[in-house]
């Protein structure tokens, strides 16, 4: 494991350009530029002041700079970041602090439609447990939504606008942003769901 994995220890400072085709764990400091074809893990003691280009990034420490990820960026509860994120999947959990823009991309709608439904169910459980117990109905609608997908373009733009609204209080808006975007692809389903809910309330 250790022989196939790169670790930057706590007392190490690297300044310059770092490139590679393997996972990189940062416990110390890296300044400059980082580009990897695999995963960057910034541990709690790690500080990265760099523009980062990776496949996946998991931030538990501090990142100052922009992250471009081809797959996902995750800010864990101890993660702190200032900078912009560009990635098709962005996960910000309760406790993380973040200031900057998020761009989940609106290009290649075909690809996103196939990726996102697969990605969301993985994220939802953490969202539900952390902040929003009454969400399951919405989640159920969201799960059905991808099957319909008639109008994909609005989806990414809504994600962006909602995500941009996050910074003031990261945890709750983050929870709201994820289940919300799927509805647009399936307006009829939502409308029915809405009517049903209203009817139920009236009966009660």
């Amino acid at each position, binding site marked *: 494991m*250790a*022989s*196939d*994995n*790169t*670790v*930057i*220890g*706590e*007392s*190490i*400072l*690297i*300044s*310059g*350009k*770092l*490139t*590679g*085709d*393997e996972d*990189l764990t940062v*416990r*110390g400091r890296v300044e*400059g530029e980082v580009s990897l074809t695999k995963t960057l893990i910034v541990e709690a003691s790690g500080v990265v002041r760099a523009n980062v280009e990776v496949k996946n990034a998991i931030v538990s420490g501090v990142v100052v700079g922009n992250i471009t990820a081809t797959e996902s960026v995750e800010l864990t509860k101890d993660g702190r970041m200032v900078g912009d994120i560009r990635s098709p999947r962005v996960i910000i959990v309760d406790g993380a602090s973040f200031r900057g823009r998020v761009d989940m991309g609106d290009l290649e709608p075909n690809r996103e439609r196939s990726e996102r439904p697969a990605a969301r169910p993985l994220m939802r459980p953490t969202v539900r447990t952390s902040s929003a117990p009454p969400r399951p109905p919405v989640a159920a609608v969201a799960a059905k939504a991808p099957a319909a997908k008639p109008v994909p373009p609005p989806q990414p733009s809504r994600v962006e606008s909602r995500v941009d609204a996050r910074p003031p209080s990261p945890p709750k808006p983050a929870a709201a942003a994820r289940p919300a975007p799927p509805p647009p692809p399936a307006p009829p389903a939502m409308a029915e769901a809405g009517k049903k809910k209203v009817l139920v309330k009236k009966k009660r």
Partner: protein
Amino acid sequence: MANTVIGSSIVIDGEISGDEDLVIQGTVKGKISLKESLYVENSGVVEADIDTQNVEIAGRVTGNILASDKVELKTDCRVVGDIKAPRILIADGASFKGNVDMDTKER
């Protein structure tokens, strides 16, 4: 075992400094300064000036080496550059081109 490892597919162009052991299996260009030991393994390629306490080289190093304690060139290593350290070991099979300075007074 050292806790900092630069893996074999990693390329660093810049400066590395720190207070702990460093193992290099990949490529580092620029400058390395440590207060502990540097290990350049078989697959490691270093094109940098090195300033550490100890250096053990089994890979390739191009650059000047300044060590406060010891420099060890192992079998199969290839080193080009000047070495300055109180203790310098060159094993049978090592290839080396450069000056050696074991003058202990200065350090």
